[in-house]
């Protein structure tokens, strides 16, 4: 036990004296939270909309004003014609345009229907779709308003509610994702590098020749990173709550227990990697490419898994972070208890046992 403590103390010295490790460990989550929270938002705001009003009547004015008063658009009214608009698109000076035909108001009054054209830059499909949605919504609201006196015969007003996230706060989805990603990096990459580093230095041999049991060497290597990863989780949660206004709905204890399970999975993956390589570079590359990339792609927090081809959906099932992400989302955002996530937990637990067994077996066979 005393040997164990001596070892752990030494491991903390390593971490706190290496600026690079510290930076990866505590700088990375910070950067990711800020990036995902503020820079990589999928909401579209203050987009410049070029309005070409060929009709200049009451209705076209009113509709333009409606659009102006929304926070989504900065309206730029101009007298240019259709061809000039296309030039603006080519020069990347316009992303979207709204064109009223010359008889817009008349058509509306006499025929009861009229048309407007929305032009968007399809090379950026996400923004384009969002813009079309916004304008359509504003238009249909306006349509209802002007038909007030003589009600439409059938009106269906959808009243959407986004459950668990009524304000549409984008942070809610990526916080669990960032947690999975950061744990993957800290636990897998740093653990594998720290074990391989000892091999490179030759200190691993000294440790294996010592009366300290090989298994204990591995465990004492892993424990400091387990502790540091838990600190990381706390940091991410604090940032999420106080900077990004995320409310944690479920049990914090459950959150930590599930996180611990996932950390152990990552640690075993890290140990597995360190068993297969003798250079720090390879270890780092393996954990970055082999672990981080699948985590980003197959976890479901950046790209919806449902839209992927079946093959990729199957692959996603063997990625541990996918299950962790589901669990954390359920507990943190929906406030669900263990009763709702036991299946995912069981899968994650199975994966943990499997990776840990392989890592330890491998370590032993390499010794003899």
């Amino acid at each position, binding site marked *: 036990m005393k*040997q164990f403590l001596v070892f752990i103390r030494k491991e903390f010295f*390593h971490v706190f004296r290496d600026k690079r490790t510290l930076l990866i460990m505590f700088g990375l989550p910070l950067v990711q939270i800020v990036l995902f929270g503020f820079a990589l938002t999928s909401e579209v705001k203050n987009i410049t909309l070029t309005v070409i009003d060929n009709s200049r009547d009451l209705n076209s004015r009113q509709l333009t004003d409606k659009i102006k008063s929304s926070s989504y658009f900065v309206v730029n009214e101009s007298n240019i014609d259709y061809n000039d608009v296309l030039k603006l698109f080519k020069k990347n000076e316009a992303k979207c345009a709204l064109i009223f035909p010359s008889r817009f108001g008349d058509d509306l009054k006499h025929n009861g229907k009229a048309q407007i054209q929305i032009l968007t830059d399809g090379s950026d499909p996400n923004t384009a779709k969002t813009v079309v949605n916004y304008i359509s919504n504003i238009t249909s609201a306006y349509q209802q308003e002007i038909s007030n006196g003589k009600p439409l015969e059938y009106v269906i007003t959808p009243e959407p509610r986004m459950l668990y996230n009524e304000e549409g706060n984008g942070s809610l989805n990526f916080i669990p994702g960032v947690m999975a990603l950061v744990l993957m990096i800290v636990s897998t990459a740093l653990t594998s590098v720290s074990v391989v580093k000892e091999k490179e*230095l*030759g200190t691993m*041999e000294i*440790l*294996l*020749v010592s*009366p300290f049991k090989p298994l204990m060497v591995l465990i004492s290597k892993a424990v400091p990173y387990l502790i540091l990863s838990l600190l990381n989780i706390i940091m991410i949660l604090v940032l999420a709550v106080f900077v990004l206004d995320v409310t944690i709905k479920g049990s914090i204890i459950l959150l930590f227990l599930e996180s611990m399970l996932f950390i152990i999975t990552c640690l075993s993956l890290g140990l597995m990697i360190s068993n297969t390589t003798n250079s720090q570079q390879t270890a780092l590359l393996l954990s970055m490419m082999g672990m981080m990339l699948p985590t980003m792609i197959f976890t479901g927090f950046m790209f919806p898994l449902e839209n992927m081809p079946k093959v990729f959906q199957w692959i996603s099932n063997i990625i541990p972070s996918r299950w962790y992400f589901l669990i954390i989302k359920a507990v943190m955002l929906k406030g669900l208890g263990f009763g709702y996530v036991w299946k995912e937990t069981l899968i994650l637990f199975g994966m943990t046992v499997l990776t840990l067994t392989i890592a330890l077996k491998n370590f032993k066979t390499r010794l003899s």
Partner: protein
Amino acid sequence: MADKVITCKNLTKKFGDFYAVHNISFDVSQGEIFGFLGANGAGKTTAMRILCGLSYPTSGEASVAGFDVYTQQERIKQNIGYMSQKFSLYENLTVLENITFFGGVYGVPAAQLKERSRQLIAKLGLTNEAKKLVASLPLGWKQKLAFSVAIFHEPKIVFLDEPTGGVDPVTRRQFWDMIYEAAANGITVFVTTHYMDEAEYCDRVTIMVDGKVEALDSPGNLKSRFDVTSMDEVFYRLARNAVRSGD
């Protein structure tokens, strides 16, 4: 003759069809400086790993400090020290922290640890450097410190795997003074080396060629047997017919 602390009888280690160590037999007495020579790939490291309890032999018998290499690896580890050619202290730990760490891992009682670390640092003349990172020490000092750490827990036997690689001649000489001192205190020294002048410092040497022990005697006897003036020539006579080379 003093007690035998290492005995090997027909020790063999096979990797597939390859005999890394082929039927070697020798004994090492307590307090002896035993040189283990051979070209790269001759099987020195494999033999040493077996004796350190890091791997199992394929056949044959061997015991270290009275413990069997097949069944008592853990007991062996409690009685040996080890230092390898790769530098083996932690660079970003201080001198004192390194001593405390390895002392702790090798089971030096906590009550003695503090006082003995202080003595060791004073003896090495590192009192002013005790709180400095090992990375800041010159290589020669690091090697001496590594050796001191390897025998800090007072093992019966210390295994040195090419301990003086890359060290200047003056420091090498000082290093050998430390080895003599350890041997005088009753610690058996088992050392592999490439430097033939170092072989002259050993009480007895074995020369391994292609996994086999080709010669085993004191340097003086070996030189007269081959009728040459230096160990360098003894080694050349034996090793020039080697089939294997390199790692």
